[in-house]
């Protein structure tokens, strides 16, 4: 019983769906109706059937045109995608190169930053020391003062020497005068004494 109903089902299915689906069925139906039309005799029916067949043919051509267009479109899309794919590939390699370059640049920039920071660090230390111009000026003015003072010292020393010499001369002259005066006294004493002696000798 099951197989009979199965057979029924199959038969029904074949009857309904036997020609296949969509376009395939249209072509099969067209073929069958063409054969029927060739075999039929009457004019009127034949004419309507002929019109109908032309219609179906038109439909078939239309769907064929559509599929061709879809096929072309698919081909073009494939090409488009290929292009996009190669473009993306190129962009990838370009990006990789850029990344490598940027990495180099970063290293360079880091080196520069390191140098700058080193300079800054040294500059900070240098700032703490007084300005070179100022110190030079101070040194110059101190030098001048030193010279000036040494000049004064020399002058004072010269004066001192002169005064010493003058005093020496004065003192030595005084001494000589004293000496001369003493000598004179002595001589005048001696003279008087001699004179007295001669008088006493003469008196005898």
């Amino acid at each position, binding site marked *: 019983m099951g197989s009979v109903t199965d057979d029924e089902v199959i038969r029904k299915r074949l009857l309904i769906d036997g020609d296949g689906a969509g376009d395939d069925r249209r072509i099969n139906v067209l073929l069958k109706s063409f054969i029927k039309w060739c075999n039929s005799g009457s004019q009127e029916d034949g004419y309507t059937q002929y019109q109908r067949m032309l219609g179906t043919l038109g439909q078939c051509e239309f769907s064929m045109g559509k599929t061709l267009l879809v096929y072309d479109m698919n081909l073009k899309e494939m090409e488009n995608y290929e292009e996009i794919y190669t473009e993306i590939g190129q962009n990838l390699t370009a990006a990789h190169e850029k990344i490598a370059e940027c990495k180099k640049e970063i*290293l360079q920039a880091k*080196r520069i*930053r*390191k140098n700058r*920071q*080193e300079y800054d*660090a*040294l500059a*900070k*230390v240098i700032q703490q020391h007084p300005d070179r111009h100022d110190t030079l000026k101070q040194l110059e003015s101190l030098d001048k003062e030193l010279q000036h003072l040494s000049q004064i010292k020399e002058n004072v020393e010269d004066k001192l020497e002169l005064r010493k010499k003058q005093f020496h001369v004065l003192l030595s002259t005084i001494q000589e005068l004293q000496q001369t005066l003493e000598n004179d006294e002595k001589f005048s004493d001696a003279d008087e004494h001699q004179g007295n002696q001669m008088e006493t000798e003469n008196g005898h």
Partner: protein
Amino acid sequence: MGPNEFDPQRSLQVLHMTVFSQSFSPCGKFLAAGNNYGEIGVFSLSAALGPEATEDSKMPIVTFKAHDGPVYSLLSTDSQLLSAGNGEVRAWNWAELVKKVSVGLGALGEVDNSLLMAGGDNKIHVMDLESGDFKMVLEGHSDYIHCLALRDSAGECLSGSEDGAVRIWDFRTGREVHSIEVFKYQECSRPQYGKYISCLTTDSDWMLCGGGPSLSLWHLRSVTPTTVYPVPGCQREACFHQDLVLSVGDGPFVSHCHLSGDVKARIPCTPPSLYSMRLNYSSQEHRVLSVAGSSQN
């Protein structure tokens, strides 16, 4: 005990572990870290940083016991890893061979084929890497040396020590060029922290130093402090990177500062106190900053 079983001894160790030093391999793909138990763990950067990294790939690929005491300093040369612990320096080929080299201390530096070692005996020993004998000894510090920095452009090295002085030594004459007592400068000194210098780094004309005194930037030609950074706590390691100054120390963060003195960023990290910071310059794809310190507890 299998690797997946719970080992209470090991967990306790991990709880109290502090990483003191790090070093990237010459190819830039591995990181070696030395801890306070004398072990060195080697991590693979490509495994840990790759897109399919799991918890396991972040564990060290090799761990071995290098010294009896803590590993205070690690340094990578072209083919070897030098590690310094209490009393000795060992060299390990990055291809995992072991070769004991000589006796030493706390800080390592390398300059054209000679190795500088400085530490507990207040002196810096310069050793030739090829022959293994000592070329010269730089004396002058009155207390042990914490850190070394090299100034290739002038053929000098700088050392910072517990006595608060940073000394600049000339390699050709083997004598001291300058001695800078950082704690004597008012703008840097922080008497509440002491006077020791625990971090030192140089960028040919400039020097960063910190520790007891605050982290400060010095111009070496004129020997003047130019900027003092307002970073709290004692800094244990600092370095120059592009146009920034990075420093780590007390406090669970890495400070990024501009050279001009303002703190640009403070990146928080897990360890409550950081002892070591390293930048991986030798690798293009794993350019990382790695910081390490004490464990959270």
